């Protein structure tokens, strides 16, 4: 299946620079946010939203999902 991924902030550095944090990933059925982190070798603590709704990192993704990933939101 394919998911459309937007990586915000420092997470965009896990993709080639011209991508500016945006890519389409091919993943096996049943893949989760954690699998995306593993595939991209992301080291930071990650939060994610699918279709604007924040989800747990064990959330199972569906074909065509719009996935946003970012670091945990605090102050600043």
């Amino acid at each position, binding site marked *: 299946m394919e998911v459309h991924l*937007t990586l*915000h*902030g*420092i*997470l*965009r*550095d896990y993709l080639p620079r011209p991508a*500016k*944090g945006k890519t389409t990933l091919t993943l096996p059925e049943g893949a989760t946010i954690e699998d995306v982190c593993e595939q991209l070798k992301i*080291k*930071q*603590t990650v*939060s994610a*939203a699918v279709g*604007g*709704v*924040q989800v*747990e990192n064990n959330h199972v993704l569906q074909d065509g999902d719009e996935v*946003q990933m*970012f*670091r*945990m*939101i*605090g*102050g*600043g």
Partner: protein
Amino acid sequence: MPTGYNGKILHVNLTTGELTVEEPPESFYRKYMGGSALNMHYLLKEMPAGADPLGPDNILALSVGVTTGAAVSGQSRMTATAKSPLTGAIGDAQCGGFFPAEMKFAGFDAFIIKGKAAKPVYLWVNDGHYELRDASHLWGKITGEVEAILKKELGDKDIEVAQVGPAGEQGVRFASIINMSNRANGRTGMGAVMGSKNLKAVVVRGKEGKKKFTVANKKGLNDLARLGAKMFPTSDVAGLGKYGTAETTGAQQSVGMLPSYNFNSGVFDNWEKIDGPTMYDTILLGANEDKQDLKGRDTCYSCTIRCKRVVEITEGPYKVDPHYGGPEYETTSTFGNYCGIDDLAAISYANQICNQYGMDTISCGATIAWAMECFENGLITPEDTGGIELKFGNAEAMVKMTEMIAKGEGFGQILGMGSAAAAKAIGRGTEEFLITSKGQEAPAHMPQMKRSLALIYAVNPFGADHQSSEHDPVYEEKVAYPERLGALGLTEAQPVRSLTPEKVRFARETQYFYSLMDSVNVCQFVYGPAWQLYGPEDLLQMIQAVTGWDVTMEELQEVGERRLNMLRAFNAREGIDREHDKLAEKMFKKALKGGPSDGIAVDRAQFETALDEYYRQNEWDVETGAPTRHKLEALELGWVADQLRV
């Protein structure tokens, strides 16, 4: 011989010109640690209740902490505390930069400033020597000019200057104290207090003091510093370093938490034009040669993160001089999404005006956003604004109004009172659009989506503030940083947008920890109970290594609780009580529009129940919200209870 701190406090009476040095015992430092708690000791002891915030009776206290100046990240912070002219309650604001460390090296832990000078002066403190000097030639000048003149006048390019700009001189209620021309004790109008005293600047230098500075356990501190440097590249603050605090803009947008159009929406269509990565790619100094990591990132004394932005714009209507730094997330939000503006150059230019004239970018941008909503609704008219079309999205109008506030011109004089006072002055129902708590404009984090933050905005003694507790997402559905939050006894995550007794406990315990951090005076990106570079146990080790004290986590939390109780007691003396612990009505009445947060407002019943719970957990009077004698005595503040007659 103390390690980490000087054991000396300089008292400055500007009315008489008298300067005296106090040498408090070690127990005093261990009780307060410095910063805000230490400042509150003097404000409560020496300021009469009911003092005019802009009169000579107000006391401006400037303090560093017991660890300021140590060779480790995140320690170079200074707290300014006084009665706030913006809120009429206690005012309190922190800054970073090199000033705090240099102040420590100059030989003092605090300056306690009283009275009012007959003419403009500056305080010059040089390796233990101190004097007041004439500042008539500096009055009316912007920050960068003053810094340059003082460096030449004192013959030393390494002096550090904390000063008020023309906005502080004129009494703009949200004027800030600026150092390095780009770091601010931003909030609550501490610059207006300093300006009202005819104190243009505090200048420090500690060339010899730096050489003599010692810590109790150098190896322990070095180990911690090395650990921080090693952890940083893969840490959760790596992005703050590279992309600045505006790294978070995209995250906020993703979940409908980017306050837009004066908090009418949690999403802003053109957010990508004003976020941290775009700033990095386009206007950060060195971006044109891909050397922005080298040239476009500045730091505070001895910090590994380097999160401060250095912006240069040489073309177009909004030219920006790198000397005045660059905008934080709060600033890109208040001048940007709050105002519906997607012009990063205009936002950076407004930021520059604030740093030149000495104004808080949060209150300034948020006040303009409030005025824009009033204008859109016909409550403020072109007759009021001098013909300026103060509509959402009008970058030119936003910049013009920022200039007018800074210079005290036309409608800028009204907005320079802050939005709450301006609404009172204008009337016509303009208060409907306020986003203030205790008269201070809300920063760029949304109570509608973070319910413990809604509580903290309301109860915080110095008004709506985003750096007074940890935010909800780390304690919703699962504990995001179990080891660190566990160190504070926080182990039971709560549902999204809940405000259960356990969520209140999360807010209160992390509020104590943040309160501690504003007393030890450490950066809340470097230390904290969750995503920060160092956790609570690291902070404990750091304080132990610098001071040699066998402090415990419980003792540290008590320092934070003590400071919070002192702030609340100050407000109680001023008649500021539970009635003032309010969230802006707009947050309850007007549901957000668009994006993932569409239709969401703060639940009033949930909020009111949590208020009761918060006072109960603090062991305060639930009816008034004031500290009780029982609690004050438990915190060794019986003398404060005597003042309150409780």
